[in-house]
């Protein structure tokens, strides 16, 4: 009996009517069909996983459920009756709560203000009653088993704490269907365990939970049922007890995928990048990199694992010249480049794929060809003196489009019209090359499996051609798969170093969370 048949059988036997049904949901965006006749059924008190790769349409479906998007067609039923959800206020009134992937918290407001926003506790018709709100919030947090300071400003909380605020926010509104969009993407393995405990506790109290993820192991661990979505369509329902990671992956991607990167053996050579005692401050003047030493040799990939916001961003910016370090040294192939301008660093043979392609890596309003020379526009043959050579620029773009399999109608279309994966390939195509050092910051965040595989493959090729590669990723799986050596960063310090072969996931997770393994 396959997993799908089992689910069908279970459903037939089950007498409880679904808490929520979505029938034939279709949503079209310019150029894509994000949801194509999706049917989904959530039962009371179950954890239902929605599995699919980036861009499959999971978030779109849930945003429709939450009233943030209007479907082109289809209907939503709750407890058997058709309902219309025009906006989030409707969704909240019907007991739907949502924890978004990018938290919907106002950083400068307090926890209490964030939680009650929109459903304020009042003292008279005009004024807020912050004290009463704080009392209620403490009680709710206790109920699900954690503590929370209602007076703290949200921007001062860690990512894990912010997620708790989001959950309390939903409970405060008496949610009986709780949607969590990629809740573990930014958490350490231990924080993930903690959130799973909370979810199980909520389930026993009768809350239905929709768990959106593309991480197979987690889905198999937590879910009671799994619905797989690919390219806007439901392609299968699975019973976690009767399926495997491989089956899920194949269904999710629609072809057989290899879960492992074929990395081969690294042959490290001469040191390329050497960082000594580096101290860097962030925009607000806080020291976020507090004495980092690291060395990367040619022909090796060094991964930095860490919870987002532990100094990775500032470290990379200090190496690439975008931020002046307040102490310490950076040298490239023996030459000191501490505090050098970005262009000077680049000219020493550094390629850099930034974390946020739309914010840093690309000019979305420019055509593909201008973007392929964004970092080399001054050099021959793309410019002669101060005059640009349009023909050479176009030729470069045409070459890269073929070589990196960029799906674009031509070099003169705007980059903003390309998909996320193809946008990232434009950046990668531009930055990969004969460089001595390659810095990859979140190189595959938010892109499809095909593009991810492609970028991983090219990264290994680049290493084998003799480049030193520095990989920074919030996705621990990616770091472990791709790196020859793993460094763990915690509060601006390197707190652990592992050989790829001997790296233990749990130990790294503890180091990421606490800075020590015990």
């Amino acid at each position: 009996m396959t997993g799908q048949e089992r689910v069908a059988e279970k459903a037939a036997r089950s007498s409880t009517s679904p808490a929520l049904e979505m029938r034939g949901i279709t949503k079209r965006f310019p150029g894509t069909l994000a949801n194509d006749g999706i049917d989904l059924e959530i039962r009371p008190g179950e954890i239902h996983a929605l599995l699919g790769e980036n861009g499959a349409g999971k978030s779109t479906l849930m945003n429709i459920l939450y009233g943030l998007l209007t479907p082109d067609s289809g209907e939503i039923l709750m407890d058997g009756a058709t309902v219309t959800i025009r906006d989030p206020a409707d969704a909240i009134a019907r007991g739907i709560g949502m924890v978004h992937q990018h938290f919907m918290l106002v950083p400068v407001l307090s926890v209490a203000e964030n939680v009650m926003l929109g459903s304020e506790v009042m003292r008279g018709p005009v004024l807020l009653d912050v004290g009463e709100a704080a009392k209620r919030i403490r009680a709710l947090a206790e109920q699900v088993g954690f503590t929370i300071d209602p007076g703290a400003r949200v921007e001062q909380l860690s990512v894990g704490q912010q997620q708790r605020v989001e959950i309390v926010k939903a409970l405060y509104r008496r949610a009986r269907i709780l949607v969590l969009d990629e809740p573990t993407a930014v958490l350490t393995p231990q924080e993930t365990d903690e959130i799973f405990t909370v979810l199980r506790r909520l389930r026993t109290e009768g809350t239905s939970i929709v768990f959106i993820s593309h991480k197979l192991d987690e889905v198999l661990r937590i879910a009671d049922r799994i619905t797989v979505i690919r390219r806007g369509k439901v392609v299968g329902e699975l019973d976690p007890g009767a399926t495997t990671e491989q089956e899920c992956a194949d269904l999710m991607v629609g072809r057989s995928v290899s879960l492992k990167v074929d990395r081969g053996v690294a042959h490290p050579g001469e040191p390329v990048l050497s960082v000594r005692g580096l101290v860097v401050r962030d925009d607000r003047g806080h020291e976020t990199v507090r004495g980092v030493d690291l060395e990367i040799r040619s022909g090796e990939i060094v991964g930095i694992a860490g919870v987002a916001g532990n100094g990775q961003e500032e470290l990379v910016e200090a190496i690439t010249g975008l931020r002046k370090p307040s102490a310490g040294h950076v040298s490239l192939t023996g030459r000191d480049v501490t505090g050098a301008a970005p262009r000077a660093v680049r000219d020493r043979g550094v390629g850099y794929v930034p974390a946020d392609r739309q914010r840093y890596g690309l000019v979305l309003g420019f055509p593909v060809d201008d973007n392929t020379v964004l970092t080399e526009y001054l050099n021959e043959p793309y410019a002669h003196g101060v005059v640009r050579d349009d023909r050479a620029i176009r030729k470069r773009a045409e070459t890269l489009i073929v070589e990196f399999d960029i799906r674009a109608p031509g070099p003169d279309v705007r980059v903003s019209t390309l998909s996320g994966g193809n946008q990232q390939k434009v950046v990668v195509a531009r930055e990969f090359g004969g460089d001595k050092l390659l810095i990859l910051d979140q190189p595959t965040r938010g892109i499809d499996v095909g593009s991810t595989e492609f970028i991983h493959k090219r990264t290994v090729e680049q290493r084998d051609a003799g480049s030193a590669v520095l990989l920074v990723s919030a996705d621990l799986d990616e770091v472990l798969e791709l790196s020859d050596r793993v460094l763990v960063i915690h509060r601006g310090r390197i707190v652990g170093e592992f050989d790829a072969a001997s790296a233990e996931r749990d130990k790294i997770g503890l180091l990421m969370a606490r800075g020590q393994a015990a």
Partner: protein
Amino acid sequence: MNLLFIPRLIAELAVYLATVVPDLLPIVLTLATPLALGALCGVLCERSGVVNIGIEGTMLTAAFMGYLTGFALHGSIGAAAAIAAGVVVAMLTGALLGLLHAWLCVTVRADQIIAGTILNVGALGLTAYFNRLIITPSGLGGAGVIPPIVFGLGPIALATLALVGLIHFLLFNSRWGLRTRAVGEHPKAADTVGIDVFRQRYQNVIAGCALAGLAGAYLTLESTGSFQNGMTGGRGFIALAAMIFGRWTPIGAFGGALLFGFFTALGVIVRVRPAGGELGDILAAIPSFWYAALPYLVTVVILAGVVGRAIPPAADGVPYEKEARA
């Protein structure tokens, strides 16, 4: 030249300013009133995420409409009633222009600085056009001015003091204030908890522009009793600087308004109450053009000194798109 010359001069200046405070203060408050109202307009708009550089034009149009109302009605209903009607019309004019600005910025999602420019350019044209057609050829005056109540301050100036305190308190302690701040910082977060971002922004911009309208009424009906083309003279922009100086808080912005009011008052006070001795010679020798230019230059200097450390609301100037793809 004696080395002690500069410090002595500064000491003399301090003594001089201290002695003229009783005369200076009402002038400063008078000059600060339109700036404070304009800055309150800025605070209301920007706290909800809408940049409004059209305060200048809103003030000017409202000043004209208020004056025109008084001009048209004082013959039939008497000066006092005509002035009161003028104040109401000025605020309504402001609110109407606020509606236009909100529509452009919130619904149409036009560039907010361009939207403000439309108000400024349109105000100059419309007021000058009708001024030339209606008021100038008549050769008649307006309804006069509202007489001061206390310390040389009229009702609008006094109301401004109250409004500053009230709006400051409400911004940080009321439901309206919480929602305003949320919408200006993270509109999507507000949207996901059921707050109507568009409505909140419309409300704030319209209310804010009504206050800018009150500033206009102050200029023509409480302060000068006449209308001249372009009479706002950059006050709407100085008000923005005061808002930034006050880090988007009403009381802080009022502080900024007082500061700019002080530098404007300086040119007046050295004529009305000349200082004695060396200092008096120097102050008298400074050309009046310099005194006139001083508030503008001070605005630039203070803006340059302060703004780097002042952080505006995070979503300030960013139009909200409801159906943006996640």
